[in-house]
Structures are given as structure tokens and as C-alpha cells.
């Protein structure tokens, strides 16, 4: 149990560091701002209590806000997907998944299942985030383009990361 908690803390720090030091420094275009830190929320075990997911989302958003000078922005978006994640999993997972307490990853649920899950969650997060950031519906289509292109890159990076780092658990 303690080892598991330490494992998750290390994973949390690793994902946040990758986001802040690598992803945030890719100055590709103003339309491409991938946010991969939601991977931490996405890959929490399916059986995690919903209230715990919401609290962890809050903490993740708080850390991101602290380091990117955007008070409340990442917090609001991450709490939102932390809340709807539970409803999606109830709809998309069987009872056994909940009982076994597995993580919703590529190795456990398959690439297609994970892609659908990641795309829906990333789109929700980015829609919420980018429209909240501009704080209005002026430039609606420009913001929509920003959401779609950033989501594409986020899902791409998240999936590549999954294929690279979670292969071990499949072999076990």
C-alpha cells in the first residue's frame, strides 16, 4: 500500500516535470499547446473513489496553476474531467474491472479502448481550458481550432508515452 502511494507520487512528479520542462518548451505554434499532465488523472486505478479523484485533480491543477501563472484555470478544467471520468468509466468498464482495481491503460484495456478514452477526456479538458482562458466566445472558431490541434498533439504524446513506458506490465 505504502509502496503504491510512493509509486503514484513519483509518477505525479515525473508527469508534471515532463509537462513543465519539455512539453511547455515546444514553441511550435500558438495553436499547439499540448497538456499531457492529465495523464496522471486518466491512469488512476478504475476503482479509485470518485471523491479522491476529484481531490487529486484539484491538487494537479493547483500545481500546474502555480507554475504557469494562471490562477484557477488548470484547476477548473482538471476538476471537471476528474469528475466526469467516473461517469465515463461506469459506462465503459465492466464490473470485474472495478473489482480488480486495474488501471485504465493501453496494456490493460487495449489500444482502441484507451484511444477513445484519452480522446474524449482530452477533448473535454481542452475545450473547458481554452474557452475559459479566452473567457468569451469571441474568436470562437480560432479557439476551436486551438482546442482540436492541441488535443491531437496531447493524445499523440500520451499514447506514445503509454506504448513506451507501460509495455513492461503487459509482459508480467
Amino acid at each position, binding site marked *: 500500500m505504502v509502496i503504491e502511494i510512493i509509486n503514484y507520487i513519483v509518477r505525479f512528479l515525473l508527469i508534471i516535470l515532463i509537462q513543465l*520542462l519539455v512539453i*511547455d518548451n515546444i*514553441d*511550435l*505554434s*500558438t495553436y*499547439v*499547446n499540448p497538456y499531457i499532465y492529465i495523464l496522471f488523472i486518466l491512469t488512476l486505478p478504475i476503482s479509485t473513489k*470518485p*471523491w479522491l479523484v*476529484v*481531490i487529486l485533480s*484539484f491538487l494537479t*491543477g493547483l500545481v500546474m*496553476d*502555480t*507554475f*504557469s*501563472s*494562471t*490562477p*484557477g*484555470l488548470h*484547476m*477548473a478544467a482538471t*476538476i*471537471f474531467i*476528474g*469528475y466526469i471520468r*467516473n461517469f465515463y468509466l461506469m459506462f465503459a468498464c465492466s464490473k470485474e474491472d472495478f473489482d480488480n482495481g486495474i488501471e485504465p491503460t493501453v496494456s490493460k484495456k487495449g489500444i482502441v479502448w484507451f484511444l477513445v478514452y484519452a480522446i474524449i477526456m482530452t477533448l473535454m479538458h481542452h475545450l473547458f481550458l*481554452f474557452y*475559459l*482562458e*479566452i*473567457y468569451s466566445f469571441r*474568436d470562437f472558431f*480560432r479557439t476551436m481550432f*486551438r482546442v482540436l490541434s492541441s488535443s491531437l498533439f496531447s493524445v499523440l504524446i500520451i499514447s506514445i508515452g503509454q506504448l513506451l513506458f507501460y509495455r513492461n506490465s503487459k509482459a508480467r
Partner: protein
Amino acid sequence: MRNLIFFFYKYYTFILFFILELFSFVVLYQYNNYQRASFLNYTSGVASTFYEKVNSTTNYFELRDINDSLMAENARLRAQMLNAYYQTGFTQTSINDSVYKQQYSYIAANVVNNSVTKLNNYITIDKGSEAGIEPDMGVIGSNGVVGIVTSVSEHYATIRSALNSNTKISCMLKKNNAFGSLEWNGDSPKFSSLKYVNKHVEITSNDEIVTSNYSKLFPQGIPVGRVFSHSLDAGDNFHYIKVELNTDFSTLKNVYVVKNILKNEQQNLESTLKGGN
């Protein structure tokens, strides 16, 4: 009563979600509305220390470029020194303190964190309240305007860069002093737009744009950029002007914070006027 307890028990996740979401909206709303970066004042110290550590490592790889830009700036400033001019008359020697009272002083600082592709970009610098920096001071680079200080901790300050949808800088065309407001629309980090320039003003491409004399934050005439393209729709009262920015924000390393010594005096005078109405 039992029903109430049952209600809380059944929906505690939703209630938790609702409270936290409400909290983040309040923080966001407060920040957007009043520009009072109270949240940032608590957190910027932590974040800045982290970025300083990262920056002290990555800075080594860019030393050559930084040196080059500083030498170029030195050369330009040396050319403006009094002893670089040949004296043609006696007017220059009459400069003394009673005629020219210093209005602006500059605080040099290094950039420790910067972004250019977000909708709201921020820059962190390594000087703070200890060096005399306060919120709402202008910041310039060696090529032109950079942004406005938003929050200050003891050793660091956060700057809302000109590449931020909330930043508005009062500017004017250098040739005829027609003024407008520099606002970024989040499109490209190389360009910004100058709004509210009246339609009767003549504009040509490559016109120089500088800070205006209305601004309390910047000295008059600090370069901002050049007119890249301009258009005027029929029935519109204002030009649409696309501005090519002088400052290359993606390679920004050294900046100067502008301290306006007479700012309080001007502000007090203007606030008494408003209060009188």
C-alpha cells in the same frame, strides 16, 4: 433531517466537485476582473525558485548569444554618450540638474522563465521587491517594449508580456503621434495589432510605432514595432493595423524594468480629478 443527511451522503462527490470548481472560478474571476494577482503573490515565489534552478543550468548553452546581444547594445549606447559627439556649439554643456530632472530609472534583470505560444504568456525575472520592483511597472528589452509587471515576490517578479490577451499598451505612430492601443490576439508571437487608430490618420507600411506619452509605465518613444499591414473596412471608424514586433520574445534574456519616479504624482493628480466629478 434524516433526508438531508442522506442527501449529503449520496451526493458528497458532487458537492465536493461543486465546491472545488466554485473555488477555482472565484480565483479566476478575481484575477481576470481586478488584475489583482493575489493568488500569484502566494505562489510565484515557489515557481520562480524552481525555474531559476532550471535556468541556471540551461543558461550556459546560450551565453554566446547573450554576450553578443549585450555587446551590440553597449556599442549602441556608447555611440550616444556625450564624448562620442563632436562639439559644434555650447548648448550641450549647459545641461544640468535644475533643467533636467530625472523621471525614469532602470533596473536590469534576467529572464528565468518565458513562454510565447500560450494565449496568455508570462515572463519571470530574477529581481523582485528587494531591487525596488513594484506591480504595474513597465518592462523593456534592448529592442523595445516587453510587458508589464503583475506580481512581485522578494527576489522575483512575474511580467504579463505583450503577448498576452489582457495586456494593453498605449502606443502611437512615430511620424504623426496618432495614438492607439497595442493588443495581442493570440495568433503569432511575431505580430500584434494596434487598435483604435482613427480612420482619418494616414498610414503606410513600415511606419514606426513607439510608446505614447499617455502611458504612465513607459517613457515616450520606446520602440514597439513597425506597421506590417493595414486595412480599413467601409463603415469602420478605426484602422486594422498588424504590427511586426521589434522584440523577439522567444530569445529574450535581458530586460530592464522601468521605474517612473513621477508616477505617483501623476496618478494622485488624475485621481483627484476623477474624485471631483
